């Protein structure tokens, strides 16, 4: 597949490519310079200030950062909560939505109807979503514990228990995000040549062999992409906790961005919130770079 890369290009052509490359990428660069640069610079500047948005900022150097790292128990607590959530949620979301996609990557009659049903949870948002889950997870009369009770299991307190609250939010996120992710994997699955599956058939392999030896390697770029994105999204988890638990009980759902939000918009400590944001940026960036390095070894790019 790989033959022509060794070819030495002439420099005028290379220059043309460079120029065209800049041209193609220019919408984003211009957009960034107009809409993105100023806010980013300002948020960094604010992170060095005491600032409440409505009045002038007071420069305090690295005071916010120092306080965060040395003297703020909620900072560490929220990092722990967020990491816990990320580590549990990311693989489950990927695996779950991939399996959903495999299930609907089918040509049986009425499949479009099923796909639509699978997709529906991902469009329920906001208050309706939280009202729904407060009901589902209610320990006394919620659907979950009612079903568990049928099997004689005494269900947990879910959102009311410090041990279960984060898992409850993971569960909710899985349910509500599965359909959207399914689409992404479905698009990728549709690209796998059926010939590859036929090979497995001939070798006498079952669906697991197909899944393991064809599906997973063939969609590995998409898995890789969404692992990276899902880690980023998990780190930014906010709405669920904000609407349903307000960070409780015992701060067990005080996620990083929730804490940041409290600082920014409840306390109007925009400087402190900006420092939190920049530390988050550094953390996610490091984790993403590590993922890129590791990913390079495992991902199969057909195009290369």
């Amino acid at each position, binding site marked *: 597949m790989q033959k022509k890369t060794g070819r030495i290009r002439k420099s005028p052509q290379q220059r043309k490519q460079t120029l065209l490359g800049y041209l193609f990428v220019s919408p984003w660069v211009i957009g960034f310079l107009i809409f993105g640069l100023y806010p980013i610079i300002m948020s960094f500047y604010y992170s060095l200030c005491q600032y409440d948005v409505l009045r002038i900022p007071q420069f305090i150097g690295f005071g916010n950062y120092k306080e965060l790292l040395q003297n703020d128990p909620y900072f560490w607590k929220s990092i722990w909560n967020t990491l816990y959530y990320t580590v549990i949620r990311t693989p489950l979301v990927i695996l779950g939505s991939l399996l959903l996609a495999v299930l609907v990557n089918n040509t049986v009659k009425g499949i479009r109807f099923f796909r639509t049903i699978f997709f529906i949870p991902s*469009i329920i948002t906001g208050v309706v979503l939280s009202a729904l889950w407060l009901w589902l997870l209610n320990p006394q009369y919620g659907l979950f514990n009612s079903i568990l009770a049928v099997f004689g299991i005494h269900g947990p307190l879910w959102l009311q228990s410090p041990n279960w609250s984060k898992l409850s939010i993971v569960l909710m996120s899985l349910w509500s995000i599965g359909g959207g992710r399914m689409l992404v994997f479905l698009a990728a699955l549709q690209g796998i040549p059926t010939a590859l599956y036929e090979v497995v058939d001939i070798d006498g392999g079952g669906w697991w062999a197909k899944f393991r030896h064809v599906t997973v390697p063939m969609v590995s770029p998409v898995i890789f992409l969404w692992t990276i994105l899902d880690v980023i999204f998990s780190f930014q988890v906010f709405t669920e906790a904000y609407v349903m638990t307000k960070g409780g009980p015992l701060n067990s759902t005080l996620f990083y961005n929730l804490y940041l939000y409290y600082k920014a918009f409840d306390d109007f400590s925009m400087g402190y919130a900006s420092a939190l944001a920049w530390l988050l940026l550094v953390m996610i960036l490091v984790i993403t770079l590590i993922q890129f390095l590791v990913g390079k070894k495992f991902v199969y790019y057909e195009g290369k």
Partner: protein
Amino acid sequence: MRLNFKTYRTTMTYLLLIAVSVVLILPFLWIISTSLKGSESIFAIPPQWIPKQIHWDNYAKVFTKMPFFIYMKNSIFISVMTILGTLISGSLVAYAFACMKWPGRDWLFVFMLGTMMLPMQVTMIPVFVLFKQFGWLNTFKPLIVPAFFGGGAFNIFLLRQFFLTIPKDLFEAARLDGCSEFRIYWEIVLPLAKPALATVAILTFMMTWNDFLGPLIYISDKLKGTLALGLAMFVGQYQTEWGVLMAASVLVMLPIIILFFLFQKYFIQGFMMSGIKG
């Protein structure tokens, strides 16, 4: 024997599909059922799936309590423009990142990803101040125009990763034939990328359609509101009319469901048709 196996397989598939559907659809049915309830039976235990008294007036109230069609018009306009901008500019940028070689490309890419990781809570205020300077407050511009400049790092990233899976030989051959970059992008890459573009389109649509914070801070005129904003009005601090809220949310979700049902073939079959793989 082979036929039997096939029937067995199909039956199993259906059983599985139905089982998963039930799990995923039950809560949605609850929303619909709640949208037809009056305040007396909403929180009844055990829940009434089919309300004793069906309150169609919840739906009527949605139309009297907010200018539904105006909001719908606004939501459609904003969503369509955003999708358009994202698809056009995002694919160009992604093409540059995935299919072309130029110095600084990888660094710029990492930088772009970095911008995605800064929580919007802290950039929201400076962005707002910026749009104020442009004189764009109380217009749709803050909600639409940025989409025409790449459509956000997330979408570019998505498209780039997809473009990476397109065999390089295709471009190389075209370039040797003297094809211009734009023609390669337009005539080779875009048609192949239909599923990815459709995915980006639907994700963008969902995001824009449900976006509540953007319209909230930029729009102050009652008639310029969007459906998501109107929906939030049904929630009160002490009093929430759950039936009406659920009715409104069903009405807001309906367009997405219909669109999805009608257009899913575009992003699901597109790739198979092209037959270029392998």
